[in-house]
């Protein structure tokens, strides 16, 4: 039991710091980056349950993200239902979609599963563009900026930050629960060797489905946060292969099949994106050229992500790190 208490003491510390951050960080641009960071960490965490733990590499998670955003926004715009209810509806629709897609594709293995998820995402994107009277097609969805708790629109960025933080902590708790219980162990077994897992009494399809349901539901809910934060989105921004790829990348760079991997991945990729986007104004294309090269290097030299690498840092080096940490924290309190 000692181990668990010692760990939570530290998590508490991490939580407190996360809670106080908005007081330190005033500029909206930083808050915007932090909100996106938490959003992507949440979704990458959700993806990690299916992809990292279960080994089912889906590149179709944009389906649930888009369905979540569209469900809550269309309910809000057409019937005035508050996005708080939209959160539940979004989770329900995404879970249903998860089951609908998972059921047939779980029989497939490896890249066949991945290609099937890409195909599903493309079909849904094209349908969303096609059914203009339902989804307003490529005109996109615009939610009027009427701040208010009931319509989940806030004037202050810090409120969105806390909303994103709560969502992230929920997803972290779920991943923590998965990692600690039968579900996590079974998923890892399925990832390592499906046949051998089945003969040990694991209903492979059922546990893949459990991972899909959790993963889809969380991603759908995160879609609602995205819609309420951006207040404008179109099929191209929410049903997009690059989005599915980015969240998978964040989980992979961070460390697949680990609890904190996605958070670490997001803490690197999201700011990197922001910085790269505004650098090299002179030479258009250079920023994403570097992004591509960095992608190749990270994935080739750290196939299991950063987490295992950091764990292997020798104790001596880490203790020196501690001294530096206290020093750097004072600096940010400007």
């Amino acid at each position, binding site marked *: 039991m000692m181990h668990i208490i010692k760990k939570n003491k530290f998590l508490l510390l991490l939580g407190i710091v996360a809670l106080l951050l908005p007081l330190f960080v005033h500029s909206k641009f930083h808050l915007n980056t932090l909100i996106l960071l938490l959003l992507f960490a949440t979704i990458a965490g959700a993806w990690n349950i299916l992809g990292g733990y279960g080994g089912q590499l889906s590149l179709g998670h944009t389906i649930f993200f888009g369905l979540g955003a569209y469900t809550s926004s269309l309910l809000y715009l057409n019937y005035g239902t508050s996005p708080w209810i939209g959160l539940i509806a979004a989770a329900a629709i995404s879970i249903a979609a998860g089951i609908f897609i998972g059921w047939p594709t779980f029989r497939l293995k490896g890249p066949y599963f991945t290609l099937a998820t890409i195909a599903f995402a493309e079909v849904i994107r094209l349908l969303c*563009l096609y059914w203009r009277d339902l989804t307003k097609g490529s005109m996109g969805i615009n939610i009027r900026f009427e701040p208010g708790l009931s319509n989940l629109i806030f004037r202050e960025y810090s409120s969105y930050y806390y909303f994103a933080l709560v969502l992230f902590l929920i997803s972290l708790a779920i991943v923590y629960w998965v990692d600690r219980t039968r579900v996590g162990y079974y998923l890892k077994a399925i990832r390592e060797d499906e046949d051998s897992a089945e003969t040990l009494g694991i209903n492979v399809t059922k546990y893949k489905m459990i991972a899909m349901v959790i993963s889809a539901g969380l991603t759908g809910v995160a879609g609602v946060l995205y819609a309420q934060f951006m207040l404008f989105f179109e099929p191209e921004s929410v049903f997009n292969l690059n989005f599915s790829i980015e969240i998978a990348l964040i989980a992979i760079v961070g460390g697949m099949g680990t609890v904190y991997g996605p958070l670490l991945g997001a803490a690197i990729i999201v700011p990197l994106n922001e910085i790269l986007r505004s650098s090299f104004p002179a030479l258009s294309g250079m920023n994403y050229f570097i992004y591509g090269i960095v992608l190749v290097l990270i994935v080739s030299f750290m196939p299991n992500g950063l987490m295992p690498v950091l764990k292997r840092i020798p104790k001596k080096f880490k203790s020196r790190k501690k001294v530096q940490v206290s020093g750097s924290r004072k600096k940010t309190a400007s």
Partner: protein
Amino acid sequence: MKKFLMFLMAAMLIVLTACGGKEAGGGDSDTLEIGALFPLSGDLALLGEESFRGAELAVEEINKNGGIDGKKVKLVKGDATDADAAQAEANRLVNQENIKAIVGSFSSSISFAASEVAERNSVLYWELGAVSDSITDRKYKYVLRTNPPASYFSKVHVDFINDVVAEKLGKNVKDIKVAITHEDSSYGTTIAEEAKKLAEKEGINVVSVQGYSAGTNDLSSVVLNLKKAAPDVLIAVSYMNDAILLTRQSAELGFKVPVFLGSGGGHTMADFQEAVGDKADGIFDVDFPQYSINREFTPGMDEFLKMYKDKYSKDPRSGHSLSNYMGMKVVLDVLAEVGEVDPDKLKDAALKYKAEAGKTSTGWGVEFNPENGQNTKSEPYVHQWINGELITVWPKKVSLEEPQISNK
């Protein structure tokens, strides 16, 4: 494990401080900073960059003539490849670089997303090129637009059919069959839908409307449907890739239409003419002003062309640079009046700013509708490819040649 998480915490904080470092960037006294948000990479890079060049030239021009009250004007660039990037970049410009006015954006979804952020932070968003009506329909307090929206395009489509096509084809307007094809992004869809609405209101028979995915690499089915519909007029709203494809495959499959009304996204560029050669001849292009135009009506266009050639050692790829240039000059005129980059003062000064048609480099007048910030005096013209050159043919006041329609 525990020690590691301390390390993670440190990593996150350090990254944040790195972003914070640039805080001091904005607000030096001797420069007037204006944000510039365009798609400079990705699928829209071609016309995104072309549009940005227009704004850049206008700023260089005014800085050469001593800037504004001695202060240099500086364009702070942002590369917004899509709506998400636009939101993030707008946020960076507003909150990080303390920008108080932003010009942009060529693409409607970028303009929409970025102006959303600008409005929330009461920062002026001055659109110079994106056409979707919804940008100004929102009636936001801090959104202005100098270029014509999609509904003005469809007005030109319909007026051109009424005034020119009906007479040239010797048909009553009611009997003219119109088909519409458009790529399915916000650009194509808005113009196509506006054209359909207005045409039906005017009693023009719209026989088919076909949308297709912008990234498609085959339009044979679109062309074959058109052959079946056999329209007199085809309104085609496309980007470059599908514009070339449509023209080439129409020729291959023997689809001919007396009046082919192309659009700014694809049919105006030299690349299009180079790709399809003489098949371009006869194609109309409803778009921002081009360069073979009645120069009396567009003073300042020659200087612009010279500046463009000197800086980029090539002729402009399309009219987008010119319209962004003209729009930027209006912004700079208003800024000169106000003297500082203050959103509210700039907005009021802009609403008072008036210019006659025929007195600007695009020939557009300038008068902003106080309700939605749309320049009501701007209008697209009709140009036509004649012997490999894009010449303005309608309306009369700007045309150099008569529209050539043969009833073959």
